[in-house]
């Protein structure tokens, strides 16, 4: 089920909240947790019920690994179990996500003819696998108290973070569900949650999906784009992925707050960063945290000299690229970000002398160019788009204009007799998106400073109303694919 769907907004969310607070009100705490797990499983199974056994199996097996790892078993046995746990998780992830890619490469290199399995990737597998990997490793380190199965199942399946993060740690979630003071309805937290949800929904439905129309039309006809279309396609994707992921994170944060649960910050205005190191401190923060704790530091972090530090950084970004998808486009994207990170650190001092505007512009240009590789179905498509950036022409294709014909703002511009209304609309949309990303407070800051004023009420009512009335053009979140 999508956050941006009628069934979620009008059915699952309100019913789950009612049952959760109702059961907690009568001190039926365990029953309340069971109800939340069931709602989360319904949320998950609604996409495709056949995914459900994979999620349930993963939860059960990792819980058993955890129980063994925190027991008094001998250290050698525990070491064996932790390796088993890590390999089992990575094995499942590898099978579902990379097996076909592996076969494709075997076929290519050895001119073999292995039949591809066309395996359907279970939704959110990258997220709940990493979440549970961290739990298994922490159990080995004995930094985890003994949780009962219900608490563990709720930690993994809690629906706001299940399918696209944030990648939460057990220590961030389980204690909150155990805290009796958080079990009663709190207007303050709920109001902040509604606010974050409204902003997230608007970002997704009104901005990201509108930009996505341009992006899809552009990448569908990449070799025949005019120059201006190529530029618009690239810039629109840069802003689409920002508002898509930011919108999802805001909604996850907001829904968490409605349940009195604070999820960790995952997105902190990343386009405000003026270098790539700063960008990765602000974009998908919990993924960066995971890679730092469970890849970078075990590799030696920055403790083994400069060269080894750079190698470790490179490995982290290579793994990050592979994590994002099974394809050479993702690997190249990870490599480029790794190299940029290393260069940024190596030349930190001279780069610091450059004016901030120059650094920001260079960083934003780098992000734009690398997002093209990230989005393009193949390297050939990415190369074609780069070539079209140098082509002339101000025309928009019929397909692109057709994709915008139902858009109300575009229609308004056309009705006012604005020439080239489609082009004007896209430019205005992009400009608004860039200004929102760079000049406005992000939603986490916004809900921390939240005051229940008439102004905030009017804004939230407007965003909720317009967004809900725009849901019928539903689309999934880009990060669901990773």
């Amino acid at each position: 089920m999508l956050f941006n769907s009628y069934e979620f907004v009008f059915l699952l969310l309100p019913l789950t909240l009612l049952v959760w607070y109702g059961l907690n009100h009568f001190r039926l705490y365990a029953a309340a947790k069971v109800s939340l797990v069931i709602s989360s499983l319904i949320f998950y199974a609604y996409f495709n019920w056949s995914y459900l056994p994979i999620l349930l199996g993963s939860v059960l097996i990792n819980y058993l690994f955890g129980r063994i790892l925190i027991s008094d078993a001998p250290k050698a046995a525990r070491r064996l179990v932790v390796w088993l746990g890590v390999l089992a998780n990575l094995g499942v992830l590898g099978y579902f996500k990379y097996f076909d890619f592996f076969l494709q490469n075997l076929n290519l290199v050895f001119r073999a003819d292995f039949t591809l399995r066309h395996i359907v990737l279970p939704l959110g597998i990258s997220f709940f696998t990493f979440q549970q990997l961290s739990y298994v490793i922490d159990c080995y380190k004995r930094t985890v108290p003994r949780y009962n199965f219900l608490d563990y199942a709720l930690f993994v399946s809690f629906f706001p973070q299940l399918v696209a993060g944030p990648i939460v740690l057990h220590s961030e979630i389980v204690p909150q569900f155990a805290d009796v003071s958080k079990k009663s309805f709190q207007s303050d937290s709920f109001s902040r949650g509604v606010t974050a949800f409204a902003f997230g929904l608007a970002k997704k439905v009104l901005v990201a999906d509108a930009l996505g129309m341009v992006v899809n039309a552009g990448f569908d006809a990449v070799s025949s784009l005019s120059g201006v279309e190529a530029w618009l396609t690239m810039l629109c994707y840069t802003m689409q992925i920002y508002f898509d992921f930011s919108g999802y994170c805001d909604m996850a944060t907001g829904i968490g707050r409605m349940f009195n649960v604070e999820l960790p910050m995952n997105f902190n205005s990343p386009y405000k960063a003026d270098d790539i190191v700063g960008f990765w401190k602000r974009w998908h923060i919990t993924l960066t945290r995971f890679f730092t704790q469970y890849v970078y530091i075990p590799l030696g972090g920055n403790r083994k000299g400069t060269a080894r530090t750079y190698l470790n950084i490179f490995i982290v970004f290579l793994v990050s690229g592979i994590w994002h998808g099974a394809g050479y486009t993702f690997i190249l994207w990870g490599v480029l970000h790794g190299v940029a990170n290393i260069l940024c650190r190596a030349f930190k001092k001279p780069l610091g002398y450059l004016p901030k505007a120059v650094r920001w512009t260079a960083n934003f240009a780098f992000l734009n160019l690398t997002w093209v590789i990230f989005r393009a179905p193949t390297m050939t498509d990415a190369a074609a788009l780069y070539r079209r950036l140098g082509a002339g022409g101000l025309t928009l294709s019929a397909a692109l204009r057709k994709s915008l014909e139902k858009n109300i703002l575009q229609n308004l511009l056309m009705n006012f007799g604005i020439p080239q209304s489609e082009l004007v609309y896209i430019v205005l949309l992009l400009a608004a998106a860039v200004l929102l990303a760079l000049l406005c407070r992000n939603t986490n800051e916004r809900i921390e400073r939240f005051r229940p004023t008439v102004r905030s009420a009017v804004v939230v009512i407007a965003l909720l109303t317009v967004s809900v009335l725009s849901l019928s053009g539903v689309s999934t979140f880009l990060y669901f694919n990773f």
Partner: protein
Amino acid sequence: MKKWWIAVLCAALCLILGAGAVNFLIDPLMQYRPLHPALTFVAFDYDYINPGLAKNSEYDGVLVGTSLAENTDMDKCETFFGEKMIKLIYPGGTSRNNREILDVAFRTHTLKTVIWVMDDTLYFNESGDLSHELPMYLYDDFLPNDVNYLLNLSVLYNYSFKDVFNSLRGLSTPALLRGDIWGHSDAFGKDVVLRGLRDSPQAEKRDVQYYQQHVRDNLEHNVLALLKAHPETEFYFCFPPKSIVYWYSAEHDGVIDAKFYSMEYVANVLLRQTNARVFFFADRMEWTTDLSLYKDSIHFKPEINDRMSQEMAQGSGELTAQTASETIRVLHDALKETDYSEYLN
């Protein structure tokens, strides 16, 4: 704080439900009832209009097809066939488009007649392809899906408000949906047809098996399934004329044999069905060679649409199991002998 969230949720809910109520009462896409006579209907988007027309119009027969059928005058068609008819057209549409809308029509009406004007899109697309994504919530009968129609800002602005606004401006509903769409506004003639030929890209050449598979799949999933499910309905399949420039392009692109294979295969399979009649107008050389009738290589003047309706009603131009292959082969042979330069200069 408590007052704040209660006020916010109540206000948002009221506005959302209010929008839904407006869309329900005006019902601009005719999902629940025909459009109120006092309202002016000017929306012109087949994907959105067709399902409502199919659900809530009065008719006994339907004409489906692509832009080749778009200009058919339904008042004349009704006279020829002697029954109440509507047209449900998808320009550039595929056979799946036609099947989807005919499913709606059959769910809501008992049809005497279906006229299906054939186009290349019947043969050369995947059987599951749509010309573009349809708003399926308008096509199904699943009540909860109506939320997509009712709680929809685009429907509210692009249809409900505009219908009311245009009514207030005193505009009347144009007769476009029953008559000629572009037949008397677009330029026709040899010059525009040949200009289009110069600008058109070369068709992608594929194996014959590719076309054979697509024709078989399209017939099976989107045509024969309907014929078998509705034996009480008489289906008229019509192969319209194509200009000589179309045949020249097909020859030049190396796809002419595939096109003839497809026509012959389709005609013969259809003629084995008890409730199908097949009409062939592609061999009318006086229409094929007269480029003044065309605006490009395939789109002809509305007069031809009306002639085809009339002849089908009279039973003229009809193929039989005995004549189909021969008729189509004669045209193929005639085109092989044709000196196209005579028409292209």
